[in-house]
């Protein structure tokens, strides 16, 4: 057909030729995955407002990962009209640029959580996490009442440092004050000026209403309440959303 008859017998008998051709074939698959990463700089939109997680939010995020919330909840509003109607503006790459690892997920047993921040009150989240069916009778979400236990944040400074080593722009000041910032955010009665200066648009809160303890519940609600709230879409122009 092409003049030279294809001869796999020759390839199969020549170990070096077989090895080289196998390498070429496999590397095509690898390149397809790797090459897009070279364009990551132009993939992330130039929008304002994105900041690293506060220490309390980061601790809450770790609980989110530990409990496997991503197995039922995605954090990715896709660019479809129906998703926009339900959840709001589609997710931007910039909104998960500091996620190590990201929590996009691929399965929705429950709703998408990328824009859940501020949709409910802190108290609602606490009651719902404890006993979801008291508020949403038809839900199949498990009870997370056990999150009403003290948060272990002895290593919060190291956790910020680890994120920093992965490229998240925590300053040395943020890392050094991680413990103080976590406690300041979880104790609304305390002066949070230094904390607020380091983390824009972060709110002091005590979701479980127990000022005597900083609980895992406080941390995860702090995380949930900031999801999707950092970018002010009323100030975002189509130009800024353009990738490339």
């Amino acid at each position, binding site marked *: 057909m092409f003049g030279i008859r294809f001869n796999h*017998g020759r390839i199969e008998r020549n170990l070096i030729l077989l090895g080289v051709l196998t390498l070429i074939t496999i590397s095509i698959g690898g390149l397809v995955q790797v090459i897009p990463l*070279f364009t990551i700089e132009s993939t992330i939109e130039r929008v304002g407002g994105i900041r690293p997680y506060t220490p309390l939010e980061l601790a809450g995020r770790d609980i989110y990962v530990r409990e496997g919330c991503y197995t039922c909840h995605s954090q990715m509003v896709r660019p479809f009209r129906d998703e926009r109607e339900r959840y709001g503006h589609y997710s931007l790459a910039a909104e998960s640029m500091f996620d190590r690892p990201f929590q996009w997920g691929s399965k929705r047993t429950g709703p998408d959580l990328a824009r859940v921040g501020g949709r409910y009150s802190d108290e609602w989240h606490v009651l719902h996490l404890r006993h979801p069916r*008291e508020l949403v009778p038809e839900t199949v979400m498990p009870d997370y009442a056990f999150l009403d236990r003290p948060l272990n944040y002895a290593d919060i400074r190291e956790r910020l440092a680890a994120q920093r080593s992965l490229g998240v722009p925590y300053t040395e000041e943020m890392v050094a004050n991680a413990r103080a910032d976590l406690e300041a955010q979880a104790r609304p009665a305390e002066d949070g000026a230094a904390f607020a200066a380091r983390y824009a648009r972060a709110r002091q809160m005590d979701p479980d209403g127990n000022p005597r303890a900083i609980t895992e519940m406080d941390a995860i609600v702090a995380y949930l309440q900031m999801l999707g709230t950092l970018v002010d879409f009323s100030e975002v122009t189509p130009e800024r959303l353009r990738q490339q």
Partner: protein
Amino acid sequence: MDDHSQRAPADIDAVTGRTTTGHEWDGIRELNTPLPKWWLWTFYACIAFAAVWVVLYPALPMTGATGLLGHTARGDAERDRREQAAAIEPMLARLRAATPAQILADPDLRGFAMAGGRMAFANACAGCHGAGGQGAPGFPSLADDEWLWGGDLAAIEETIRHGIRAPDDDATRNSLMPRFVADGMLTVAQAADAAEYVLALGGRSTDGASAIRGAAVFAENCASCHGERGQGSREMGAPRLDDRVWLYGGDKAGILRTISLGRNGVMPAWESRLDAATIRMLVIYLHSLGGTEQ
């Protein structure tokens, strides 16, 4: 060297009468069964299709990532949104231009607002207030004519737009139920007497002496917001205490807990999340759900 694949497939298998590939293992030869031609050409056509597709659609990140057609999923979504908006814009424009009273008077507008409001309620409100607006402990029922902050059209719109104690809205409705016992303003015994008096306001007290002691506590600490007879105040969102509608549980333990630790429910402000027309539709829907107060 014997090259099987180079050998002309002259061998004919005696049983089937078909040619063999010439591959032979211990006397067993493989029948030559090539792929059907229709399958093979479909396969080639797929490769050709893919080659064209890669050029037209976003597949090669180094070449602009949109392909020759300039297609993006975000662009599609934006066009979808514009088309949908254009389709309902005439109705939305009429909704925005009309006062709530005019909407109620116009059957077309009212029907549109009720349908849109029901959808918006299912998405934005049902999580707390229940699928039918029936509420839950701590989250008021919207399906009755008992309103904390007012149930006429203007009051409902104000509540939706600015929320109640919403942390990110400066114009939000605000008031504070103190933590009377936790913050040392009342002793536990005084709070228990006040709770007994609150029960008495609804005709449910079982301990007259305690209720009489509680009357004084109530007059001094509670009446400024909840009214002298517990009739409530919409200006402060202070619930009526002389009826059988209870947001946080109306038994003595529930009332005592409320007095001791305070209650300050939060509703988000929706002005920044929902557009003006959607809020207007929600107002019409909720007004119909909750007693159509004038």
